[in-house]
């Protein structure tokens, strides 16, 4: 029954854009984390470079998204790939200051993310699975890029991999252009509480993403000691992100949102030293990603690019404290996770549409 429902969702209308952008997102993150992974070996770049990259990649997505919403003819996917490859080649050949190279890589990443969000949201007819599949590709790319960065692989091979995304971007653009009335497609997103102030819904949804961003770095995973275990952890995150959207389409956003928030808690706390238990927690925990995006799109229906940028802004703000301090006490860490999760649950119940119109 569950499998049949998942299969139905995976065959839904326009879902192919999710698969196209799964691959593009995967490749983009490989290139970006290849650069970051190679940089980490150089100590002066340890602190600022990752913050710089995160800020440039995450924060302007809302601005780029708004431009893309207002001027849909601009090929932001191809522009993003161009920026990304320029930065990547600059870095590989050591042509300019490292920060200039990181800037172009990160801004290219931002453009491609926005394009992915625009395409998957606009072709989804109010479904979450399209954008969830797109987002999940990133987790697999992050770990692959990190591992390749530590290898002796020539960066030119990755330039070729980057170029391989061109037909996928063009095809995704074709699907987006096929929609006759572009703005109408987001009218089917009705996941936000209609009786609440819209600005407040956006702020609260950003808060949930913030907490998720912070917890993503602060999760208690003492079991994670080998490369293979790290790979498995990232895979669990990727599968969780995709499953969140797929199950929300099959069973309703409210049900899946509550289940993922509540169920992740005991598994994450107990699973500090037990890999399987912890992975189940990570899986549940990652499921909220597409749900918060859908809530913000439900408010900013005419500007899904801007809505997507709001979630990435939340991710950046959530991850920011991690660059300044790390909590070493397990008890304090677990207490923060429990309190933050309960607040998130309360906030989620407030902002989500109780009517389940989209089930």
């Amino acid at each position: 029954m569950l499998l049949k429902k998942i299969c139905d969702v995976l065959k839904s209308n326009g879902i192919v854009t999710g698969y196209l952008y799964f691959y593009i997102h995967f490749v983009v993150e490989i290139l970006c984390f290849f650069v970051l992974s190679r940089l980490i070996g150089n100590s002066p770049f340890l602190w600022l470079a990752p913050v710089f990259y995160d800020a440039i990649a995450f924060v302007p997505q809302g601005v780029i998204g708004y431009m893309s919403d207002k001027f849909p003819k601009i090929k932001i996917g191809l522009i993003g790939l161009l920026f990304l490859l320029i930065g990547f080649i600059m870095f590989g050949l050591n042509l300019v200051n490292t920060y200039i190279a990181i800037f172009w890589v990160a801004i290219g990443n931002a453009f491609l993310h926005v394009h992915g969000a625009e395409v998957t949201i606009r072709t989804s007819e109010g479904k979450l699975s399209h954008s969830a599949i797109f987002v999940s590709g990133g987790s697999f790319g992050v770990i692959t890029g990190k591992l390749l960065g530590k290898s002796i692989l020539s960066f030119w091979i990755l330039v070729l991999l980057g170029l391989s995304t061109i037909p996928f971007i063009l095809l995704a653009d074709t699907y987006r252009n096929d929609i006759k009335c572009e703005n109408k497609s987001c009218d089917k997103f009705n996941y936000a509480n209609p009786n609440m102030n819209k600005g407040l819904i956006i702020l609260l949804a950003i808060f949930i993403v913030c907490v998720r961003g912070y917890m993503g770095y602060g999760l208690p995973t003492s079991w994670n000691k080998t490369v293979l275990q790290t790979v498995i952890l990232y895979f669990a995150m990727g599968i969780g992100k995709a499953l969140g959207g797929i199950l929300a389409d099959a069973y309703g956003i409210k049900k899946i949102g509550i289940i993922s928030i509540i169920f992740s808690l005991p598994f994450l706390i107990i699973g500090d030293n037990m890999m399987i238990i912890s992975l189940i927690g990570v899986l549940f925990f990652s499921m909220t990603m597409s749900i918060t995006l859908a809530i913000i799109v439900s408010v900013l229906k005419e500007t899904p690019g801007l809505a997507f940028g709001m979630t990435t802004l939340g991710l950046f703000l959530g991850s920011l404290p991690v660059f300044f301090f790390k909590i070493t006490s397990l008890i304090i860490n677990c207490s923060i996770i429990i309190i933050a999760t309960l607040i998130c649950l309360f906030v989620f119940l407030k902002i989500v549409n109780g009517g389940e119109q989209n089930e």
Partner: protein
Amino acid sequence: MSNIKWIFIPKFIEIECVPFVFLVLFLILMFILLFIFVKIELNKMRKEVKNEK
């Protein structure tokens, strides 16, 4: 406080002053633009709701 390990390296200012200043200015600009765009969209929606009524 002993349970918190500070990662912040004050020394970075000597090494990476220019990118840090650029980053701060970039972030301020982006936050202002985001605030303006969201405000424009919300006002537009408010007007549409009023017109429908």
